[in-house]
């Protein structure tokens, strides 16, 4: 097979001129955006929406940390504080982190990476964005009306009977957003099965696609359960029938089972895409195929499958049967192994690589360090005897921020930087990129490491006020959050600024072999002029990858 690059594309790669008609310039009306069925435009719609919610969630986080600067509830009264951390949790989880990578980077890249014109169901893709927006509107309505104070876990019977927040509106919001996640997952599964270009076999797919495949399985099979659970909760609150009400024989712990049946798989929904991104980052900037590609690919699937068997580890102290706890404990420790496999393979990929420290790569390093800490602290929680002391303390808070922020958010930022030139055709400022990556890393550790100590000392979570002797560590944490906040704010500024700069990125600024780098930046609406025929392995930097990646000197001299 000869190279699939057209003359024009090769020209585009070396000349800074972007092609005239791309997906961004193909229609400028509002309707051309709001009614688009182009996966790339929908990705941009998602990108904008989730960024907004990330800011809102971040502002709530800032409020939390400000309040916790002093041991007393002086800035916020407890009623407000409860609403603030609930809003923070719900917005960050349902409106930001779950759609973060899949709905933006995944949406944008999966069809391109497998050589398709679009996702299998473009209209359902658009529907998914609208569902997201409708769900978010419900949540925002609840927020405006005074918020919810149940915590993001909505535990019964507090949520069903005792809370006087807007539980129904929020519950319905999360219910609807759930369907947006289901439709995204469905689309990905079908697309990955049926839309691969000729020659693109399963084991030629980038690991990013594998990770999304595993994520989609969990979205498909897990999310409906949270939907029905929230529906039952809403109905219960509305009609006071008592299915979770112990007064008439209902069982509040059933709610926890149903909730975590989804929400544990959801935490993997919240990290697998990040792992997919990190595979791409590590490979790209050490210019090597991922070590043990097949193992990394299957470890995603293993996490998806075993991930459904461990939910009870959130309920060790809940009054669940002790035998059930032990079964869940064992399975939880087993599901940690595939994550270990990934970490080790990434490390091994670096061996004898040709490593450059671009901004995205800094995020990848950050991910490995932070996710390691987050994941390893998961082991403490998985050991039933240890979790009794740690459950519902700041140790948990630190654990999940390390995996969610240190894992997924960092990976998301890394991925956003890697594919920003592809999505927008513009290059951001490498200088500011590096600065902000460092700030995030330092700020993050300063914020959340002290929380491990706080947790072991016994500071319970969801506390508006805490004992005086714990103030020093809390001040560290709040100080760190300031640095972290600045670190997170910077990309918003310099990435936006890059849109108005003249620094065109070219089709392939980093000389990478993936299919997405073989089309212009920004890509045309149809992605490929001609359906590509794939003859090379994933991450093939070698001579026969069909792409004339000349060594860099040629371009820089």
């Amino acid at each position, binding site marked *: 097979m000869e190279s699939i690059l057209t003359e024009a594309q090769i020209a585009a790669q070396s000349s800074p001129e972007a092609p005239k008609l791309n997906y961004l310039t193909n229609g400028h009306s509002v309707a051309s955006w709001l009614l688009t069925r182009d996966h790339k435009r929908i990705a941009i719609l998602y990108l904008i929406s989730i960024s907004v919610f990330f800011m809102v969630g971040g502002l709530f986080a800032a409020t939390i940390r400000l309040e916790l600067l002093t041991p007393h509830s002086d800035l916020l009264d407890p009623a407000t504080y409860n609403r603030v951390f609930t809003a923070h949790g719900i917005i960050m989880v349902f409106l930001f982190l779950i759609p973060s990578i899949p709905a933006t980077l995944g949406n944008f890249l999966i069809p391109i990476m497998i050589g398709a014109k679009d996702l299998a169901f473009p209209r359902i893709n658009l529907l998914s964005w609208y569902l997201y927006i409708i769900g978010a509107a419900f949540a925002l309505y609840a927020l405006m009306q005074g918020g919810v104070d149940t915590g993001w876990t909505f535990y019964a019977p507090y949520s069903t009977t005792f809370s006087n927040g807007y539980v129904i509106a929020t519950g319905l919001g999360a219910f609807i957003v759930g369907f947006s996640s289901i439709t995204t997952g469905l689309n990905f599964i079908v697309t990955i099965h049926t*839309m691969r270009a000729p020659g693109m076999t399963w084991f030629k797919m980038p690991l990013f696609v594998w990770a999304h495949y595993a994520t989609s399985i969990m979205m498909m099979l897990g999310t*409906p359960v949270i939907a029905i659970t929230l529906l039952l909760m809403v109905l219960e609150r509305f009609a006071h029938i*008592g299915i979770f009400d112990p007064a*008439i*024989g209902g069982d509040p712990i059933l709610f926890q089972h149903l909730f975590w049946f989804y929400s544990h798989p959801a935490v993997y929904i919240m990290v697998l895409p990040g792992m997919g991104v990190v595979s791409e980052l590590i490979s790209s900037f050490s210019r090597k195929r991922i070590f043990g590609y097949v193992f990394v690919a299957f470890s995603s699937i293993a996490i998806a499958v075993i991930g459904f068997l461990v939910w009870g580890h959130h309920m060790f102290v809940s009054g669940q049967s002790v035998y059930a706890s032990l079964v869940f404990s064992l399975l939880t420790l087993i599901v940690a192994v595939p994550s270990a496999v990934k970490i080790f393979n990434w490390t091994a990929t670096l061996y004898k690589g040709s490593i450059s420290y671009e901004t995205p790569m800094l995020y990848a390093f950050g991910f490995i360090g932070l996710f390691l800490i987050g994941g390893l602290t998961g082991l403490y929680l998985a050991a039933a005897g240890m979790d009794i002391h740690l459950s519902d303390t700041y140790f948990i808070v630190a654990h999940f921020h390390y995996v969610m922020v240190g894992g997924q958010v960092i990976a998301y930022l890394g991925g956003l930087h890697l594919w920003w030139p592809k999505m927008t055709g513009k290059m951001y400022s490498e200088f500011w990129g590096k600065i902000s990556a460092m700030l995030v890393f330092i700020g993050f550790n300063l914020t959340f490491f002290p929380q491990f100590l706080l947790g072991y000392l016994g500071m319970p979570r969801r506390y508006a006020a805490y004992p005086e002797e714990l103030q020093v560590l809390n001040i560290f944490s709040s100080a760190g959050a300031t640095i972290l906040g600045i670190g997170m704010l910077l990309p918003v500024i310099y990435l936006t600024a890059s849109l108005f700069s003249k620094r065109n990125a070219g089709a392939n600024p980093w000389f990478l072999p993936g299919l997405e780098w073989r089309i212009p930046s920004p890509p045309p609406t149809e992605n490929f002029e001609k359906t590509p025929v794939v003859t090379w392995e994933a991450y093939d930097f070698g001579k026969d990858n069909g792409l004339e990646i000349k060594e860099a000197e040629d371009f820089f001299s």
Partner: protein
Amino acid sequence: MSAKVEAHGAEHHYHPPGLQHQFDDMAQQKDSTSIGMWAFLAQEIMFFGGVFTAYLVYRAKFPMAFAAGSNHLDVVLGALNTVVLIVSSLTMALTVYFAQKNNRNMQVIFIILTMILGSTFLVVKYFEYKEKWQDGLVPVAGWNHKVSPEEMTAEEHAAPAAGAHKLNAESAAYEASEEFRTKARRGEFRWADSSLARQAEHGHEGKGFLTADEKSGYFTNGELDPQKFESKVRIFFWIYFVMTGLHALHMIIGLGIMAWLLWRAWLGSFSIDYYAPVEISGLYWHFVDIVWIFLFPLLYLLGRHFLAGHGG
């Protein structure tokens, strides 16, 4: 490879009707839609699965209360509906058959038959719900038919409040009120047929078969407590309404899909080359049928034998 069809080239290639731009050919499109539908059904299974889990948990805890609740349902109507749905599944399957045979008229006829059967199901369901409403079996306070004084029998007038109570009773004032008296007997939450619990207490040859939860869940100081028993029956009805309600909702959506399908079939859109919409609508319809195949025994039948074995 070279035989690939270019959907959106500069010149016009062969573009079969119904082929969407993102697909290369009809085979790919058909594959995608059917995998998509199956994935969607997997999602539906888990969605219903949540309520089935709740059913499982509570039925394992309170089998007698569930039996008592089940005995309040109209098993004849339930069986009728089962038959109606099975026939509709057959007509749906035949619709697909005739689409494959390019027979427009038969397609239209069978879609209409399917819709008629689907509507029959819903009408029957409506009457069942109405009956529950009249009998005070809706588990939500205040959502039942209020028995007016005129409707009451002499007996009911005579002993309005004896042993009467309301769940979550707020006060005696309420119990003494007019509203309460009008609900007595046939009013809300009067469904305790606690004889089943009594029977289970003594069981076969003196071997009681109450579960541990039932022992604490129905009895107060060793006395069968109708109020506590009723609250468990109420859980049964709650699950009954959620399950059948969600199922009915799916039927209604199914009818909407059928209407659209009828329109397309009328226009003669489907043939052996392109009948994926018929096929996947059929999948959906059969799925809804399957849910009912389980709901029928779980809700209507389990527990009937308690009546049979012990003469009621």
